[in-house]
């Protein structure tokens, strides 16, 4: 996306939002004035109400349309509690506001739908048909797949190893040299490998919840590393410095084929525009290591609309030299998150129920798209027009097991062993105060469905999903809270400065059981959170200084909080690291990278050691290599002390009192797209530009053989 796109994007904001936020009020219209309306008294109010609800629709001939709309919704078994309908948009007269009850502050909660009796149904049905065509079980595109070895020859990827350094110690592109002898060697290796023991799954991602697998661009078995590089899936053998790519599949052709198949009704320029709009996000490897599920964000242009959807590709990787797409599924909405639990894939998307789309979302069960049933739509918060759509399906066949929709949720998603927590950040206003609150909905998933177990509203907003944790019958949440208080005239009395809160919510009742309110110094915001067992670790900061807090929740009735006191910089990520806490963050400036270890003492929290570099660093959690057993932390940085080749992959070992550099090698590619894995004596580094294997002697890792 470019700067120009940003400006263009802002000029495409819906007019209704611009009108809503207009800083210059139109000339006063006394009949539309709410304050006057309030003063008119009940008789006048009733008269205006009748005028609005009954007379105006009749005058504009809209009564039948409203009725049609209600009938259509009823027929589709997807009725929401329509309390009243009013004409929403006087310019088009085609759109209606469905009132879905009241918000907590008494304002009507609404979503917009277009009238099924006017322009909507045909256009929407066409979109559904197009998407439906994209789904086909057993969809195989053998003919679209290029031979793995041909791909290898055509590939621009480079493979490095230690022997590839030139006389100046710089990396030399070995791809040509390697390709010459790859075919023979690889064939020999492959024949050997077929004799090997059964392949088994090895986790590479540092999971938030044990057993709840998170998608990533890298996964591995005991034989192979699977790497998603843009829209290409590469498979590398795990063989130290002799590791090589043993299989590859370019998804572009398959995705375009699917899309072109979908696009049969769209011609000309529109078809051209649609190509390569997709973005390949992440993947999962099945427990038996035979299937890779790849998640792709995609969308379909249709007339003046763009319909985002998610494509799931189930790819057979049983034989790396014969990779093929087994199944394809398309899901409604734009991609938010996903997880895999055993052999079930959970995908979360967001669906925007706007004017030119029906308010009711769709799902596919393999036999075409259907409207969500009423019992699978949870209207809950009713604070905004977006649904969080939750799908669960078999990772290999992609057969849909369950699909549910949650209106107004989807800011951050946390999945524990039994529950999914959906969040909705919103503004809460009373006569006395206004502040940001977060509603957290508990959805139980361990019985095969998505069961709504109630929600809780807490003050403040969450930093990210790591600010939530379920433990021993309680949900713990850390928020940043700030707001304003008003006096009796409605004027701002004062603002209470931002601070951090910890809430302990009882799962059964979804009520706040205990809390630690404003435990940080005033003005601080939460920068990173990590939970481990009964402990919460929180880093808060005001500009470039921070305290780190250790909160002991072993006794939920008696929370104990210790802190480091103010220190320079702050951590953007906290990682429980053996018995200590590791912080990755910045020191005194934006270009200052800091690794720091904290430890609890009897009276507080001490800083054990730190490592500071004049560098910028990967900010994605999944880009960090974390090995708690050996005390290793690896990541990509740009080191500004190094002139010619500042992009480095660094691996440090924490020995209990200091950091020891284990590896510091030149690398290429985006920092956040780097992944590192230690397997045996070799450290594998992959990015969008390199595949490197480095020998790391056991003694460097503090291992005595």
């Amino acid at each position, binding site marked *: 996306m*470019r700067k120009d796109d940003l400006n263009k994007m*802002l000029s495409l904001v819906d007019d209704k939002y*611009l009108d809503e936020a207009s*800083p210059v009020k139109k000339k006063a219209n006394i009949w539309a004035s709410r304050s006057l309306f309030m003063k008119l008294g009940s008789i006048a109010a009733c008269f205006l109400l009748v005028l609005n609800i009954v007379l105006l629709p009749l005058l504009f001939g809209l009564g039948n349309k409203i009725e049609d709309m209600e009938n259509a919704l009823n027929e589709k078994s997807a009725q929401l509690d329509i309390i009243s309908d009013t004409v929403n948009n006087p*310019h088009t007269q085609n759109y209606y506001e469905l009132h879905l009850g009241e918000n907590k502050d008494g304002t009507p909660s609404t979503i917009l739908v277009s009238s099924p009796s006017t322009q909507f149904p045909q256009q929407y049905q066409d979109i559904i048909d197009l998407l439906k065509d994209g789904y086909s079980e057993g969809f195989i595109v053998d003919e679209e797949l290029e031979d793995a070895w041909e791909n290898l020859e055509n590939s621009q990827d480079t493979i490095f190893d230690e022997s590839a350094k030139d006389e100046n110690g710089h990396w030399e592109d070995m791809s040509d040299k390697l390709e010459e002898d790859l075919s023979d060697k690889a064939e020999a290796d492959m024949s050997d490998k077929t004799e090997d023991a059964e392949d088994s799954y090895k986790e590479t991602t540092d999971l938030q919840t044990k057993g709840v697998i998170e998608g990533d661009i890298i996964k591995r078995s005991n034989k192979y590393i699977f790497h998603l590089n843009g829209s290409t899936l590469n498979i590398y053998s795990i063989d130290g410095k002799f590791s090589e790519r043993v299989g590859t599949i370019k998804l572009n052709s398959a995705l375009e084929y699917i899309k072109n198949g979908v696009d049969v009704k769209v011609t000309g320029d529109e078809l051209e525009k649609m190509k390569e709009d997709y973005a390949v996000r992440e993947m999962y490897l099945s427990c038996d290591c035979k299937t890779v599920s790849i998640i792709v964000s995609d*969308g379909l242009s249709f007339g003046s609309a763009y319909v985002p959807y998610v494509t799931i590709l189930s790819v057979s990787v049983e034989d790396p030299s014969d990779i093929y797409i087994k199944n394809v599924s398309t899901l409604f909405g734009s991609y938010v998150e996903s997880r895999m639990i055993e052999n079930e894939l959970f995908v979360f998307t967001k669906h925007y129920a706007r004017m030119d789309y029906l308010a009711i979302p769709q799902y596919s069960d393999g036999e075409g798209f259907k409207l969500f049933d009423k019992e699978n739509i949870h209207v809950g918060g009713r604070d905004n027009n977006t649904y969080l759509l939750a799908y669960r399906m078999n990772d290999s066949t992609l057969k849909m097991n369950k699909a549910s929709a949650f209106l107004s949720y989807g800011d951050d998603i946390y999945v524990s062993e039994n529950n999914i927590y959906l969040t909705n950040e919103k503004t809460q206003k009373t006569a006395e105060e206004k502040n940001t609150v977060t509603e957290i909905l508990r959805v139980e998933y361990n019985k095969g469905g998505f069961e709504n177990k109630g929600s809780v509203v807490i003050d403040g907003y969450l930093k990210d999903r790591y600010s939530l944790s379920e433990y021993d019958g309680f949900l713990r949440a850390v928020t940043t809270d700030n707001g304003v208080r008003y006096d009796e005239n409605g004027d701002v009395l004062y603002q209470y400065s931002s601070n951090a809160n910890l809430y302990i919510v009882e799962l059964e009742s979804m009520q706040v059981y205990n809390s630690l309110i404003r435990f940080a110094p005033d003005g601080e915001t939460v920068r990173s959170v990590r939970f481990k067992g009964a402990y919460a670790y929180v880093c808060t900061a005001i500009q470039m200084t921070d305290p780190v807090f250790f909160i002991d929740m072993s006794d939920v009735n008696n929370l104990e909080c210790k802190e480091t006191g103010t220190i320079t910089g702050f951590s953007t990520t906290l990682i429980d690291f053996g018995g200590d806490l590791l912080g990755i963050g910045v020191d005194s400036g934006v270009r200052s990278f800091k690794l720091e270890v904290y430890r609890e003492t009897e009276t507080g929290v001490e800083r054990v050691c730190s490592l500071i570099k004049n560098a910028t660093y990967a900010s994605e959690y999944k880009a960090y290599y974390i090995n708690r057993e050996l005390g290793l932390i690896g990541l990509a940085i740009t080191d500004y002390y190094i002139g010619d080749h500042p992009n480095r992959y660094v691996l440090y070992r924490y020995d209990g009192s200091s950091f020891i550099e284990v590896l510091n090698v030149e690398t290429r590619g985006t920092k956040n797209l780097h992944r590192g894995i230690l397997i045996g004596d070799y450290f594998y580094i992959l990015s969008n530009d390199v595949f490197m294997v480095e020998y790391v002697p056991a003694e460097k890792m503090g291992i005595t053989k």
Partner: protein
Amino acid sequence: MDDSKIIELYFSRDEKAIEHTSDKYGRLCYYVAYNILKSQEDSEECVNDTYIRLWETIPPTVPQSLGAYSAKITRNLSLDKCKEKGAQKRGENDAPPSYEELEACLPSKDGEPVDELILKECINTFLASLDKEKRVIFIQRYFYMCEIKEIAKKNFLTEANVKVTLSRLREKFKKHLERY
């Protein structure tokens, strides 16, 4: 006069359309232009250019909201003028601070131009996912280019509160852009 009647005047090529637009939305357009250009003369020129552009584009365009449509035109013209003035001052960047704030949310600042329909979906989905209060603050800052102080006053908040809200919204917007 009602928007639909003013639009009818444009369709019948009646110059009173401009008079009524000026009467109803002149202040808004001037406000948008001045927030970007910070010059009375330039802002007035942009507002006049807006009327010409409205005259040229309606018909065939039938704006959903004449106010929003006029504000969009003024904003684009003002940003163009701002760029032009910056270029005259040998590359000096005269973009309003709010514009720069939002630029920092871009996942990458190069690459192929993104399809207009995707951009439209992206921004409106983001706005739809916010509650009204936050949406209003976001649009006032990044579309109408309002000063923090003004946003605070209009929304009965303090400046510090607006700053924290905007910082949080930018973080969310950045995350949202990464999904597209």
